[in-house]
């Protein structure tokens, strides 16, 4: 037992001696550290929605008219509401989705905001752009869709399905973020002589 202790002591002693002999320099370095914590890049958000102007629920269907007659019209409204941080400029355009193109061409559209007429003309020619944000976080648009009095009878009992696409501008003047909302529409004419 004693011999074992002695051999361990010798081993440690000579080990330390070897370590000291081989050390060229003691490496007791000083070190100072400065941290700049929580550097942050934060992305903004862009989003808008189409709402029912009466109860402010989501709205995806605008016109759903059946039996439309010459000189008849339908009236709908939508609230375009900013839902995120970034202001945006949007463009509204119409594209036919189904039905008789002649009927879609014959339909007339009037768009108003604050009782000011923003557009008046053919449905298929509708194009409009506006900005939302800063002062106004939403816009209420009123759409009046009508069939002219002199509509020929070959457009009776026809369908016209179309979408109104509202798309935010992106590119040189705007954000790389985009959003698009769609209002679907369905019009069916009645019969007349």
């Amino acid at each position: 037992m004693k011999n074992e202790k002695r051999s361990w002591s010798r081993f440690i002693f000579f080990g330390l001696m070897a370590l000291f002999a081989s050390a060229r320099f003691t490496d007791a370095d000083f070190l100072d550290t400065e941290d700049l914590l929580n550097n942050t890049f934060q992305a903004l958000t862009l989003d808008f929605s189409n709402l029912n102007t009466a109860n402010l629920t989501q709205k995806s269907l605008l016109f759903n008219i059946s039996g439309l007659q010459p000189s008849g019209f339908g009236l709908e409204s939508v609230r375009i509401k900013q839902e995120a941080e970034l202001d945006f400029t949007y463009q509204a355009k119409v594209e036919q989705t189904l039905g008789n193109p002649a009927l879609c061409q014959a339909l007339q559209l009037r768009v108003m905001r604050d009782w000011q007429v923003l557009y008046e003309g053919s449905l298929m020619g509708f194009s409009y752009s506006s900005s939302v944000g800063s002062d106004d976080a939403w816009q209420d648009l009123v759409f009046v869709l009508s069939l002219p009095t002199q509509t020929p009878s070959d457009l009776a009992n026809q369908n016209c399905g179309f979408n109104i696409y509202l798309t935010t501008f992106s590119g040189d003047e705007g954000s790389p973020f985009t959003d698009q909302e769609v209002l679907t529409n369905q019009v069916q004419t009645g019969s007349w002589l």
Partner: protein
Amino acid sequence: MSILNKKTISANLVRNLVMIIGVAAVGLASTQALFRDVEQSQRGVFVVGTLDMNVEEPSGQVAESIVVSNVGESLNMSGGKTWVVRNIGSLPGRLNFSLDNIRNIENGCNEPEALVDATCGDSGNEEGELGQNIQTQVTLTKNNAVTQVISATLAGDQVDAYKEQWLTNAGNRIIPPGGSVEVTFAWQTDDYAFGNEVQSDSVVFDVVYELEQVTNGG
């Protein structure tokens, strides 16, 4: 000459020789001038050097972290932040720079993001896509000479890239006592580098400066 006379002469010679040696020894001892000088240090003091640094704004104010909170406001973005690293200790130090703890966070998702990013609802640290779209450059400026040191993105797996490029391009950057160096951290994104997938995302990271004592061993 008789034998008696010869002995007497020899004894005299030995006596005279001893006397000559004795006189010479006394003479040498008495004429030896020992030169000696002593200098004494009045204040023998061991002084431990200090290693200390300041990271400041170029204006001299306390350094602030980078905060960019308007990513997505325009098609691209660019900017930069400069810090002055000053050695205010008495020892020279080797400067190390690194980014640590890079976290790319989704922060939830809105409708436009959800359409293009299936994982935007996840809350993991590396779910966000913002950092991988931000290109950064670290440059050093000393006496109006600019050296580019690091080029990397802020994706979470770039921590090692920052360390390795610093080691390769500026691993021996020594700041002497009283000296300083400007470190500029610049960022930019390309046009259309990102879209709705980064909406609401954030990237958060720590900038770490170390000043390490330079020893004889290097």
